[in-house]
């Protein structure tokens, strides 16, 4: 175990992948000379050269599509799309090609592509640079979506993504890059499709992922001081959802609060809630609750942005409200 940041953990996975497999290469905006917009790829250009660490033009649709083509052509491309906000420009290639080619070709094609991007708000970047749209991606069959919420997962899930024969989208929460955590950099790849119980509790299950995970854990600390023990479930993979782990937790606690930085309407939180209704209805002692971002374009001002996002205090308040006894 080593202490390292989420950023360093992701870099460690990239380095390990580049060093271990000649088919792997990294391309994206400013991944090379600049060192990565979030410095994840810092130093990799010097180590692996411009053939394998490729700066691209600002042509999201084409370099994601080129990643698909390169995967069809026998390589293992890792495409960095800087942020989810810009990935909207490449949605055609994602939805119409990456997700469909295998099925549409009757199983002849395989697209072993990894696309990484930063997601989320919390850094006062306002409405165009603060989206959390991973839930949209999770809507699409044919792709796999992971969202690491710990430094160890930033490494392990990226390595796991590279072992998949089908396209995997990795959503790294931008606010987590400087977060430190214990990382086993000798461990193998993580397991896609497996959620983790990050904290055991008996009073309710807080189900979350990515950037909201540290907030949920902080909320659990607040609640613990009041004698409420919250179980915190980290989804880790948003598609396919680990329904069994979610339901098992709800079966223990009988209450579920889903925390999701995406907007509430049509959200991933809605999907999790629906699955609990379908599979855990009779284990519930009360309705499933959701805490999502306020339904506004993200404001710039600090206090307004804070108010728009789930926070430890609001998560704890939502939990208390669920446990309140009237008379």
């Amino acid at each position: 175990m080593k202490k390292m940041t989420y950023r360093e953990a992701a870099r460690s996975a990239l380095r390990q992948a580049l060093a271990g497999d000649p088919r792997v290469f990294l391309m994206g905006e400013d991944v090379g000379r600049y060192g990565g917009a979030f410095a994840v790829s810092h130093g990799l250009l010097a180590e692996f050269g411009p053939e394998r660490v490729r700066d691209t033009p600002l042509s999201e649709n084409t370099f994601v599509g080129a990643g698909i083509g390169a995967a069809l052509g026998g390589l293992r491309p890792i495409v960095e799309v800087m942020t989810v906000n810009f990935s909207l420009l490449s949605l055609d290639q994602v939805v119409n090609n990456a997700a469909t080619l295998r099925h549409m070709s009757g199983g002849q094609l395989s697209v072993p592509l990894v696309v990484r991007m930063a997601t989320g708000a919390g850094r006062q970047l306002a409405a165009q640079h603060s989206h959390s749209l991973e839930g949209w991606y999770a809507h699409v069959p044919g792709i796999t979506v992971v969202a690491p919420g710990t430094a160890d997962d930033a490494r392990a899930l990226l390595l796991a993504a590279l072992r998949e024969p089908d396209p995997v989208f990795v959503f790294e929460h931008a606010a987590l890059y400087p977060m430190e955590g214990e990382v086993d950099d000798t461990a193998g790849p993580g397991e896609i499709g497996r959620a983790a119980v990050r904290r055991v509790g008996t009073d309710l299950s807080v189900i979350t992922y990515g950037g909201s995970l540290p907030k949920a854990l902080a909320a659990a600390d607040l609640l613990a001081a009041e004698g409420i023990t919250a179980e915190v479930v980290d989804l880790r993979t948003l598609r396919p959802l680990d329904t069994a782990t979610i339901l098992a937790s709800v079966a223990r606690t009988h209450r579920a609060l889903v925390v999701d930085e995406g907007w509430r309407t049509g959200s991933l939180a809605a999907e999790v809630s629906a699955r609990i209704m379908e599979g855990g209805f009779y284990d519930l002692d009360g309705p499933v609750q959701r805490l999502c971002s306020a339904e506004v374009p993200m404001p710039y001002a600090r206090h307004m942005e804070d108010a728009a996002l789930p926070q430890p205090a609001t998560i704890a308040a939502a939990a208390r409200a669920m446990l309140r006894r009237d008379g």
Partner: protein
Amino acid sequence: MPILGADMVAGTLIAWRKQPGDRVARGDIIAEVETEKGLIDVEVFASGVLERIVVQPGATVPTGTVLALIREDGPAPAAMPAVAAPVVTAPVVPAAVEPARVEPAPGERKRVSPLARKVAARLGVDPDTVGGTGPGGTVTREDVERAAAERQAGPAPAVAPAPARPRMDVARMRQTIAAAMARSKREIPHYYLAHPIDLHRVLAWLAEENARRPVTDRLLYGVVLLKAVALALREVPELNAVWRGERAEPSAAVHVGVAISLRGGGLVAPALHDAERQPLGDLMRAFRDLVQRARSGGLRSSELSDPTITVTSLGEQGVERVFGIIYPPQVAIVGFGRIAERPWVVDGAVVPRPVVTASLSADHRVSDGHRGGLFLAAVERLLQSPERL
């Protein structure tokens, strides 16, 4: 009629470019067809002589319809039919419904649906003692209701003047109804009156009123009608009475019996006590409670024997006008049909209005048509000022 697009289901034949007797060759345009997208040429895929035109210009026919017959050249054609081949039936694809999930081991926790818990609390049933018949042994509302009825059915009812307890033997209930109705028709000289009533004020007021109320306290229009009936009885009190021996005994209190049909068959008409004195909100709650208990077997025997008049509404079944039979020993029954938009003359102009027909069946031994008419007129008048109900 050729299929020219995935969403084309029919086309209109506009003109024939070839006439019977003309030679046609594969690839020729023989007709023009109007579609949703515009005029499209119809190409022919056979060579020969146009023998007969089947569909005339101006006709709209479904795709697959034979438009004309062509006698082909040469030997019999190969495998493919030219037109009107049966449309390929796609294999049946199951809907994308997730299979029912096997729950994770729920421990010893009893599965009780939220609604069943709610009903159990009201009926005073412990859901954990009820056997569940739902998926995976889940206790459902019906299980709770059955348990409550079984508990009620224990000691035999002491008083049984009217239809007995719900969940009783349906055949027995039928016998009770039969006896009462036959006696009514045998003994009571009925007269019948009907009176159409404009409900637009009631409905408008209700919409406003309900917008102010919490969802759980919203009023049904039926309760407004009940209240109007109860108040109108103050003006024609002889209709609110019971027949004892040779004469009617007017009742000081207005206990309106409401006819409630039961899911398993049969009918009960328990009383809403002192209906004329209850504010609408209370009446609504009492009504809901009565319906719930009637259907779950929780009625008190007094509720079945107390009514001094009955109201029956068959509007939900689309009934225009009700001709009720009086429930002895009562002396009147009021019926309501459905609310329908009708032409209504207001200040010399015809306007559409939501109209309901109120009817009265009354015992001619006790009242006359004149008084019955006044009663229905009072109901109408009261319904024009719903805010005062």
